């Protein structure tokens, strides 16, 4: 009886609601698949992309980025700036005006106390919050009234939009989390799995690393949204299976990151059930050149600045390695429309993108050979490998295990062979490679190899922290437990000076100029060899409308606007 009533109701809703005017919950079930299954709904305790994206359906930040990388107000009236008085003249405080009438999914009002609490929660001692960087230098969050939150910084912030902005730093409910501060954070399983949020959906059943069931939030601020009544957020499997379930069988509506070779994607898209979309952020697949000697015989001092690399310290060799690479072909083989060529480690946003290095776009084997000849690297013993003073141009090339990366390794090995450089390939399981275990010899930080390949990007649109990665003291070494982001162990006083200058510069044009200069320096020294400018990809069904993926925020940021195309 109940079922028929429900069906009748649904049928009536379908008949009554024209496509233009949707009603909350009128579009049935939305099925999303993430091949990496979310383990927790609290992004402050995880930091993993999968968890942040799942949580974005439920909890929201004060402001988000739009497709162009600009800020848009989300839970606030407008974006505070110096011009509208929201940001103080001395750049040490920012005042957020919350929208009136926003409610948590349990019906209680959303207030500035929750905003303040979120900061307290993440910065509490012993909590292991993954987003403390977002709240760096915040000394206080004042709440003069229920709808005003003033964030105070200890130093002037030319870019004050890090706390409470973007999918990584959403606001959580004080009432729910107030007993979960610091070391008690992991004990609040119920809150971590079923957070109360302001977003379009509410968790009804959370099965870690498996599936999340959600339903529309009755207290969502827009009465017509979300269009979907329920969401099934499935995890597990692999990229291939996820893509197949959307593009070929049509069982799911949306698949996260179907990172597959372009010919495989094209074949699946031919089934006509869905499409793959890409959006470009700042992700660059690159080769890091080790300027220090990774020889195991050096023991503790292996791969440290004490022992320069026997041949990669020669700029001609590094340049030849870069010149031998056919970047358009790499894009065609590995990424298709999910990638494009680049000659920069800082490819975006547009103001920061340099065009000084574009000669790398064309492969130049002949030029590379000539360069090596001139630098004195010749094949003196006739084994096909160039050498000089008894040093052979023989490399160990490591990366993480991933079908596209192994294809890239094979191609690059072949091209380097053409310029008389011998390459041994090694691939390491991603959980070891990207893990920071100082006891493991195979981490990307230790770089106990001559060159390594991986992709990296930066949060948001501001490259200051990213460009500071290649300062001298960022080099991983035993004293830092092998932490740090300067994998090539590049060290230049001039570069360090630019890093320091950027931290003090507020003017956007000057910052852009500095960032470009730093990028050009890294590129022209060939310590980082950029390969492919990669986009973020997702697959969605042709019947799913409203998807507007962009690289600056969670993919699910606008799930409230998604609807079924009838």
């Amino acid at each position, binding site marked *: 009886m109940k079922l028929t009533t429900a069906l009748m109701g649904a049928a009536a809703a379908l008949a009554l609601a024209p496509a233009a005017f949707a009603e909350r919950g009128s579009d049935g079930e939305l099925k999303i698949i993430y091949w*990496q*299954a979310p*383990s*927790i709904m609290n992004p402050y*305790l*995880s*930091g*993993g992309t999968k968890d942040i994206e799942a949580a974005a359906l439920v909890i929201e930040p004060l402001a988000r980025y739009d497709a162009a990388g600009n800020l848009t107000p989300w839970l606030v009236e407008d974006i505070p700036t110096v011009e509208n008085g929201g940001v103080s003249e001395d750049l040490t405080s920012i005042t957020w005006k919350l929208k009136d009438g926003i409610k948590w999914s349990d019906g209680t009002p959303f207030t500035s106390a929750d905003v303040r609490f979120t900061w307290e929660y993440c910065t509490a001692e*012993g909590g*292991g*919050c*993954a*987003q*403390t*960087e977002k709240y760096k230098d915040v000394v206080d969050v004042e709440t003069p009234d229920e709808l005003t939150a003033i964030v105070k910084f200890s130093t002037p912030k030319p870019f004050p939009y890090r706390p409470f902005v973007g999918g990584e730093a959403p606001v959580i409910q004080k009432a729910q989390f107030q007993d979960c501060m610091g*070391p008690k*954070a*992991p*004990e609040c*399983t119920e809150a*971590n*799995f079923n957070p109360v949020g302001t977003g379009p959906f509410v968790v009804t*059943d959370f*099965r*870690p*690393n*498996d*599936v999340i*069931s959600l339903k529309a939030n009755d207290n969502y601020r827009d009465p017509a949204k979300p269009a979907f009544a329920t969401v*099934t957020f*499935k995890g*597990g*499997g692999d990229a*291939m*299976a996820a893509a*197949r*379930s959307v593009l070929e*069988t049509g*069982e*799911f509506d949306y698949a996260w990151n179907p990172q597959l070779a372009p010919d495989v994607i094209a074949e699946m898209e031919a*089934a006509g059930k869905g499409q793959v979309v890409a959006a470009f952020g700042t992700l660059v697949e690159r080769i890091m050149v080790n300027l220090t000697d990774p020889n195991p015989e050096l023991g503790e001092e292996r791969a440290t600045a004490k022992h320069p690399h026997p041949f990669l310290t020669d700029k001609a060799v590094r340049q030849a390695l870069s010149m031998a690479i056919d970047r358009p072909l790499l894009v065609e083989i590995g990424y298709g429309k999910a990638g494009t060529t680049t000659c920069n480690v800082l490819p975006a946003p547009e103001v920061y993108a340099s065009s000084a290095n574009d000669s790398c776009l064309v492969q130049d084997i002949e030029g590379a050979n000539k360069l090596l000849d001139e630098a004195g690297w010749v094949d003196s013993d006739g084994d096909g490998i160039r050498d000089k003073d008894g040093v052979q141009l023989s490399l160990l090339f490591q990366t993480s295990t991933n079908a596209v990366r192994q294809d890239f390794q094979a191609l690059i090995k072949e091209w380097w062979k053409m310029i008389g450089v011998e390459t041994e390939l090694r691939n390491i*399981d*991603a*959980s*070891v*490679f*990207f*893990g*920071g*275990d100082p006891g493991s*010899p*195979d*981490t990307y930080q230790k770089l106990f190899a001559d060159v390594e390949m991986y992709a*990296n*990007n*930066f949060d948001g649109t501001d490259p200051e*922290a990213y460009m500071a990665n290649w300062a001298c003291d960022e080099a991983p070494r035993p004293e*830092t437990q092998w*932490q740090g*982001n300067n994998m090539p162990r590049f060290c230049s006083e001039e570069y360090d000076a630019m890093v320091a200058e950027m931290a003090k510069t507020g003017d956007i044009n000057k910052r852009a100029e500095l960032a470009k200069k730093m990028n050009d320096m890294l590129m022209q020294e060939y310590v980082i060899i950029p390969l492919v400018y990669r986009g973020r990809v997702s697959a969605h069904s042709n019947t799913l409308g409203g998807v507007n993926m962009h690289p600056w925020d969670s993919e699910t940021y606008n799930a409230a606007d998604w609807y079924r195309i009838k």
Partner: protein
Amino acid sequence: MLTFTIRRLILAIPTLLFISLVIFALLEFAPGDPMAQVPLTVPPEVKQAMREALGLGQPWPIRFVKWMYQFFIVEPMYWIDGILGTTWAEGQQRVISWQTRGPVMDLVAQRMPQTLWVVGMSYVIGVLIALPIGIISAYRQYSWFDQIGTFVSMVGFSVPTFFTGVLLIVIFSVNLGWFPSIYDTTHVVNDWDSFLFQVRQMIMPVSVLALYNAAQISRFMRASMLDNLNQDYVRTARAKGLSERAVVLVHVVRNSMIPVVTVIALGVPQVFGGAIITEQVFKVNGLGQLLITAIHANDLPMVQTLTFIFAVLIVLFNLVADVLYGLLDPRIRYD
């Protein structure tokens, strides 16, 4: 036999403690970092603070003792609380997973249904078809039945499940559209239609796994039967006029069961260990997927707990096999 069983059960306690220590030390020593899946954009000092919040700052012997306390004292107390409504475990820290910050045992309980439905069922089916196939293949050695059985089981064993699974999906989900390619773990069976759906979503993973299991067990059954079919006692039994059925099914099968019992007993703990590849191919998300994601995420409490449960089952079922040897062949004496 009873004293033997009791003695072995008592002996199992130090064995298991030792095994848990070895597993812990192994996990500790293995390279890997629970922060490996955190994006590269999170700075190293933040990752360090997160590690310390997980308790990684403490030396490993302390963490081992803590785990033992949580697993052997708090978890059983919590369990008793759940049954009797007492509050012994109030305020005590249970074994908490690093990935999900939820109690490990809750997750294990959550994964049980699909593991038993899919992996358990496929094992039972595998055994049930392997035994007759093995027996008939041996009895009619080199008949057509035997040749086909040999061929199918060898192909079934040597073609890995990552291939057969995907092949079935391409045929039956993509081209024919008969079965779902993604297993719905939230599905509840409460009427005939939902039961049919459950059957449809189980059919592919179960057949892939059952083929694999049956291939292995039927080979052992066949080989062991062949050894016994030519023994003197078989001739005696025939000579004294037993029916062929009785000779084969009572005498020969019983004497051939020892290696088969060993293989079956070795396989049962593996049911609970899950079928990692098949679970991944069909998105079943059972215990196997739980273990493999925990290993990839370096979620040590989870891996430790799962492998320990696995170890308990191994010790237990090897004991069961030993007891069964004695029942199958009373000449075997352990005392």
